[in-house]
């Protein structure tokens, strides 16, 4: 009985720990995952299962700036997909991912909860709303200059 509770307690700590690691490294390095598995006496597959199941985790290093284009329903009906494509074109990316210079990572996400202001995208902690394709280059440019380095 005690052993089961212990296992349960250990498991409960895994997800918050991975979230902390993701926040600190901006992705989950393989070495970190192996260390977690060893430390918590859980199979490596269990740790990888968590890391690959939940959307907030990335196994690949993310760029300096994290661009999340909302593809929620309200944003979709107001052209969210086109905004994502514009962002990808601006950054010379064929699909969602990270730029070669590691400056930007782009992904489509489902619902940031600002549906009344669709279409929406979040760059790091700043949310931009009522987006038109024409506004995208300027928003991304602001992140490149040293002065506008991630609000």
């Amino acid at each position, binding site marked *: 009985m005690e052993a089961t509770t212990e296992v*349960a307690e*250990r*498991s*409960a*700590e*895994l*997800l*918050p720990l*991975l*979230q902390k690691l993701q926040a600190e490294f901006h992705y989950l390095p393989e070495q970190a995952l192996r260390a977690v598995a060893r430390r918590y006496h859980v199979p490596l597959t269990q740790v990888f*299962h*968590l890391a690959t*199941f*939940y*959307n*907030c*985790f990335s196994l690949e290093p993310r760029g300096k700036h994290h661009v999340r284009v909302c*593809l*929620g*329903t*309200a*944003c*979709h*009906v*107001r*052209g969210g997909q*086109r905004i994502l*494509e*514009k962002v990808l*074109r601006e950054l010379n990316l064929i699909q969602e991912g990270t730029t070669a210079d590691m400056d930007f990572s782009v992904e489509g*996400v*489902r*619902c*940031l*909860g*600002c*549906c*009344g*202001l*669709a279409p*929406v995208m979040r760059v790091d*902690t700043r*949310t*931009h*709303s*009522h987006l*038109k*394709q*024409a506004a995208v280059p300027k928003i991304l440019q602001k992140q490149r200059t040293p002065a506008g380095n991630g609000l």
Partner: protein
Amino acid sequence: MRAAKAVIGNQTALRSIAAQGRKSLVPDRPKISVGMATCGLAAGADEVFAALQQEVAKRDLPYLVTPTGCLGWCSQEPMLDVKLPGQPRLTYGRMDVRKARELVRSLEKHDLKLPWILGVTTRDPNPVTGSESIYARRLNGLSGVPRLKDLPVFRHQVRLVLRNCGLIDPASLEEYIARGGYLALIHALRELTPEQVLDEVTRSGLRGRGGAGFPAGTKWAALKRQTATPKYLVCNADEGDPGAYMDRAVLEGDPHSVLEGMLLGAYATGASQGVIYVRDEYPLAVQRIQEAIAQAETAGLLGEKIPAARRNGSFGFQVRVVKGAGAFVCGEETALIRSVEGHVGEPRTRPPYPVEKGLWGKPTAINNVETWANIPVIVQRGGEWFAKIGTATSKGTKVFSLVGAIKNTALIEVPMGISLRQIVEEIGGGIPDGKAFKAIQTGGPSGGCLPASQLDLQVDYESLTRAGAIMGSGGMIVMDESNCMVDIAKYFLTFLADESCGKCFSCRKGLERMQEVVTRICAGKGSERDLPLLEDLGWLVHETSLCGLGQTAPNPLMSTMKHFRAEYEAHVREHRCPAKVCRELIHYRIDPMLCDGCHACVRVCASEAILGEKKAVHEIDDARCIKCGACLEVCVPKAVEVH
């Protein structure tokens, strides 16, 4: 800070804090409250806030500039309220930095009637106490300014759950208490038995607001009967339905309402531990609820032994926040439990239901944010009072996020039984840009799309289910003639196939196959046989999936096939998209009669597909065009057409 002030042990202590809160809510100097929930911030409210502070400081004015939650009229963000002593509450919308500075200058000159004023409020109802806060009895020189509550967007609303959102500073426990907060809890802990509290909730007829609509009283009674300890209460704030942000608004604007609801639930059922599971994508909501928990703990309202509880020995309730990690399926209660326990969010079979065996095998009652926020009002005003609102089977109000192709995008709270038409046409103000209404989607990815012929439907659990949609958590997405319903079905199937946990073969593979078929149809490669195939697959996934995600996944597709069959047929028979959305089936063309040669399109064209000299008529090379829509966006004479 004096210790006597810190802990709230009885009604006297509560009253004294309420007095402080009232001074802060309606101060004796001008106060500007800026809507600083995620929506407001996304629209630039933080810049407006900073500009106001700067201007006030520059002019050395004794004005207060404070944050508040979601005022509810999203299309008018950033919004703010001005409260001058002895004056009604004034609401302004579409604010920006320039207008903010001008506002301060005008206030100094006592000039309140600025062009961006939305409305005036002389009194605000207090649903908890049943009384009203009266700011001023007359409009005091503001004739011509409409009363906010008479505006079409607010006229039909009954704000019980949203009672404090936009009115209080969410970080102020005193203001929450001044609006009747914790009255219900203290009253219950000192004067009612747990059975009496449970009774009120049962009598209210409150049904779970997360979407399933299960009677809250029944769930709580089942939890109460359990003998295993500890008993858990969970607040499901995973709000994964795209287009829905009701729970976010409550957590960001009035976090204590959820805590008080859970405390009352714990008292009624004998639960001692609580978990608030908030999705990872809501950092501000997480921050606000954590602040509120800390405040409640300091005030002795949360803890192992809560001083205010006198009857039945000691009562204790402790709550912690658990962040989601980005998985739609974790909104399903058994998947949520697995996630809290540190596993992937794979649902389990029921029975056993969580009330018998939930978190770590212990009895657990899971309710949605909106459900919890209703509880203090129900306990204070009585279940019978609550049951007078709504319809025979669906009591009370429902919060909806009205978004999409609608003039007034807004977070609304209306009594059950209101018609969809009233929501779309009166509250929403109809469709913008002169376009025609096409469909309204309710219930998120588990729901369905209803056409114009269903607009007179009464909004309640049974009516919506009968019509092929569902109530869901409250997302209401309006679509117009420029949306393709087959594309919408593809959208939802893509989402669900992505979010399927993968446990059940039919959900995992079935949704993947359905998504492939619909994508083919949108690309003009579909055939007549695809339609019955989709229906078969849909039935199979529905019948053989373990959890609600799979069981309801075919709904968006099925409802669109039922109500918009002609559109599907056009796609498969004629390879045509009537709404001109599906990329492979449309062509962009410049009308030579309208083009003025301004060259704006060439500058934004993604694939160098537009040819033309400046001042001459331009032409699009169809072979190179990727239909990105950038030219459509910038063409002033509207010469770009879609076929």
